[in-house]
Every structure is written in C-alpha cells, then in structure tokens.
C-alpha cells in the first residue's frame, strides 16, 4: 500500500471522529435517530477506511480478526441472552420489564441498551469480517 501523506493525515483525523460519531449514534439512539445497526455500520466504515489506507497488516493488528469473528455470534448471544434472562426473571421472552418489576421504565431502558449493544457487536463484526474476507480472497 502506497503512503500518501494527505490520505494518511486526513484519515488519522477522520477515523477517531468516525468512531466517536458511531458511539454517539449508538448511545443517542433513544433520543434521536440511530441505534445499534447504524452505529455498527459507521464504525465498520471507519475500520474499512483504516484498512484501505494503512493496509491489512496494520488493521489486523488494531482489530484482530479472531476477536472480530468471535464477535459475530457473540452479539446474537447477547441479544438472545437478554431474552433468556427475562425468562429466568419470570417475564416473557424479551420482556424487559422483568429486569426491574418495580420500575418497568428502568427495566426497559436496561433491556434496550443491552439489546442495542448486541446488535452493534454483530453488525460491526460482521461487516468488518465480510470486508476482510473479500480482501483476503483477493491475494
């Protein structure tokens, strides 16, 4: 991968902000547009940009593929696990109220945050992995 100075500098500036924005979109999903899926897509875009500019080696050092691959099922497990936890707490599946029967709203908040986190993990990891897989196939 050739090293263009402008690309390097711009991307170094851009990527942290992309990740930060992704984090904002994730956490702000309750109030404004956004949520786990969009945040995952944006964060993945940041990693893809990083890969394109700094090369695959550097990217794999920053985001180890093994961990990312493990994240794909992990996100689903988090989501499904929330449901199972609700079951164990005496609610129906994905009934977040069960987290905190005295304050259902709090329970809902907790449930939604956890679930969105699960979505984020799966989406982010899947998109990065798909990109890596395509890139690696090219060699």
């Amino acid at each position: 991968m050739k090293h263009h100075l402008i690309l390097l500098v711009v991307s170094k500036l851009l990527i942290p902000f992309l990740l930060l924005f992704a984090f904002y979109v994730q956490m702000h999903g309750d109030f404004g547009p956004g949520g786990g899926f969009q945040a995952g897509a944006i964060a993945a875009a940041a990693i893809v940009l990083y890969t394109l500019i700094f090369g695959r080696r550097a990217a794999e050092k920053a985001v180890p593929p093994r961990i990312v691959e493990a994240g794909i099922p992990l996100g689903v497990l988090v989501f499904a696990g929330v449901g199972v936890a609700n079951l164990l707490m005496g609610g129906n599946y994905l009934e977040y109220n069960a987290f905190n029967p005295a304050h259902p709203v709090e329970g809902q908040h907790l449930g939604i945050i956890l679930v969105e986190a699960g979505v984020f993990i799966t989406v982010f990891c899947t998109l990065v992995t798909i990109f890596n897989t395509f890139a690696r196939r090219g060699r």
Partner: protein
Amino acid sequence: MEDLGFLGVIGHINQWITVFLIMAGLYIIVARSNMIKKLVGLSIFQTSVYLLYISPGKIIDGTAPILSPEWDTYSNPLPHVLILTAIVVGVATLALGLSLVVRINEAYGSIEEDEIYKDDAD
C-alpha cells in the same frame, strides 16, 4: 430523475415511483445475464418496497416519530421499523450473493449466467 417533481406533487406520486422501481428492478433481474447486475437489480427491487411501506406512513404536517413538545402529529413509526429490518435483510442477501458470485467467478471464470449454463451443459 424520477423524483425531481416529488416534493411539490401530492397524490399517488409515491405509488407511481414504487411501481416504476419494481418494474425496473424486476426487468433487470430477469433480462440481464450478468450476476452482479442481477444483484443490483435485486436491491432496486427491494428498495421499491421501502417506498411502498414508508410513504403511506407519512402524514402531511406531521414530523418524524421522535417525541418533542412542539409537535403533536407524528408519522407512523411502525413502517420505519419494518423497513429498517428489510434494509438489513437486503444487505445480508447482497453480501451472500456477492460471495457466491466471487466463488462462481473462480470456478467458471465467468459471471455471465448464459455462459455458465452453457458450460454446465457440456
């Protein structure tokens, strides 16, 4: 191009766009032999569904379904949720389709459906 006159026109314009997109997408899928083009046609076909769902949910003078004290009319949130899901399903299908195309290209050296079936017949 087809959406230039959109904002000013009220009526069934949304449905005309939907219909046009569905027809175009379906035409591309059936008529074109190139697999990548088929997949793009497929996503156009799926996009048309987004409009079909979202447009009836809109209320003139309403706003996005994010509660705020200044508004009391909101567009219907349910179609938005459904279409978010549909978009995700669409991109998942696209990713899987593309990886199949890559494998097909390796196996046959071509991504034209016609050539592949000719190859199979031998």
